[in-house]
């Protein structure tokens, strides 16, 4: 890490510490009623209590499970559909306009539809999460496949490579920077929708925990859940960045 990066890192920690101190100050002065706003000390205590009793662990596991299944389903389907559309010019011309119509549709709009069809079930949650998370992945894959250097396809032809080999050795690796970027965006979408589905369908997870804590005016528990959600989002996104960095090491020297 160079000097500037270090200074930025220190500065960002200082800002975070400042916010926590401010939060503590507001809580101590009771500017907001403690019923609604616990201080960081109480939130932290609630977090530790939740962990030691094991309740929070199982809620966290529930949310991670919803997120992971939905995201993986979205990734597999998004890459497969995106590859089919992206590798054919005809498909792109005919299908792209419909995608442009569907994409801005808020996922919340399909939740009632999903509930009507599948009920308040895990299957409904999986469907909603996957449906919301598929877009960034699919659109990125279409773009990545459409942008493969045509010369490489000629190399593949003169090597008489099979269709499958062309997909796995040429198109997919070439599109991988786009695909991974799409997968990173989808990760956040999957987390948000996991929480929404848990709240709506009462599925085991942090969303449900937050909802119950709010109803019971256990503000410290509520905040513990929110903090944990924030940490989950941050950690998964950092993990994804690290994976991207490793998988795309070949790009390092090009940048």
């Amino acid at each position: 890490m160079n000097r500037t990066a270090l200074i930025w890192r220190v500065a960002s920690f200082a800002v975070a510490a400042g916010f926590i101190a401010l939060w503590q100050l507001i809580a101590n002065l009771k500017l907001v009623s403690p019923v609604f706003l616990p201080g960081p000390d109480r939130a932290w205590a609630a977090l530790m209590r939740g962990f030691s009793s094991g309740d929070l662990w199982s809620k966290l596991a529930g949310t991670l499970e919803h997120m992971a299944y939905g995201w993986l389903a979205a990734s597999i389907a998004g890459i497969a559909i995106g590859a089919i559309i992206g590798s054919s010019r005809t498909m792109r011309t005919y299908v792209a306009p419909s995608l442009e119509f569907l994409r801005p549709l808020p996922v919340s709009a399909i939740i009632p539809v999903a509930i009507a069809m599948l009920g308040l079930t895990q299957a409904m949650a999986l469907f909603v999460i996957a449906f919301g998370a598929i877009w960034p992945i699919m659109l990125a894959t279409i773009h990545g496949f459409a942008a493969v250097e045509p010369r490489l396809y000629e190399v593949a032809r003169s090597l008489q490579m099979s269709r499958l080999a062309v997909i796995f050795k040429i198109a997919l690796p070439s599109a991988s920077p786009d695909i991974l970027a799409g997968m990173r965006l989808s990760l956040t979408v999957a987390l948000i929708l996991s929480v929404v589905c848990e709240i709506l369908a009462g599925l085991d997870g942090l969303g449900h925990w937050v909802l119950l804590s709010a109803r019971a005016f256990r503000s410290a528990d509520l905040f513990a859940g929110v903090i944990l959600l924030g940490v989950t989002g941050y950690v998964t996104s950092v993990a994804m960045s690290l994976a991207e960095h490793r998988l795309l090491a070949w790009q390092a020297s090009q940048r």
Partner: protein
Amino acid sequence: MASAAKRLEAVSDTATPQIAFDGVTLALGGKTIIENLSLGVRPGEFLCIVGASGCGKTTALRLAAGLYQPTGGRVNFDGQPMREPRREIAIVFQDYGKALLPWRTAAGNVSLALEAGGMPTAERPARIEELLRTVGLPGHAGKYPSEMSGGMQQRLQIARCLAQEPKTLLMDEPFGALDAMTRQGLQDEVLSLVAASGATVIFVTHDLDEAIYLGDRVIGLLPHPGRIGIELSVNLPRPRDQLSTREHPEFLRLRRQLFDFIKATEQ
């Protein structure tokens, strides 16, 4: 009956050119780019094609590679009509930067051709090392193309083409983007590689000296549409030498003839 046909084929094999253009015409987007081109390349021959920019050199090479199908006439390879590209015909593209896989190392790029040829995994590393050594890239196996100079990238592309064990090597201005020193070095390397493998070569260049230096025969194309304007046999002794060959009276005579031809086409 079958054996008689086979014997006949074997006899004619020595007589048939490895690559034969028979009245080939190609139109792309309603424009005739190559018209009525007839040309035979003998097995083991080194044929150079020169011509002004845009006269159809690259297009002719792509026809020879099977990347384009003629709209009229026929392209034959070993006496058989060429319907699609084949591994026995390797093509070295002009834009080496686009023809290499940026996500694979030098070794990985060579490996692509070995994989396509179905070589067992265990045998590949030794062959890759040998090929990289052949093109003067020993010790660069782990480098990505983006970490290599233009000359090294073009060597790498040549190594991948050699991994195809081609009967025919097609080269499209392979050294056009390289500096003079690198280019001369690579010219000699290509000559010795080809001499060692016995491959047939069609080499496209806009450098007339390069064409005469390398070729057994030089063909000059006329533009709009592309057709043969001049054909010269190069009777210079081999192995060629950068100094003595280029000072040879025959070299200078051919060079003069080719220059006059090109100058006439540019008017």
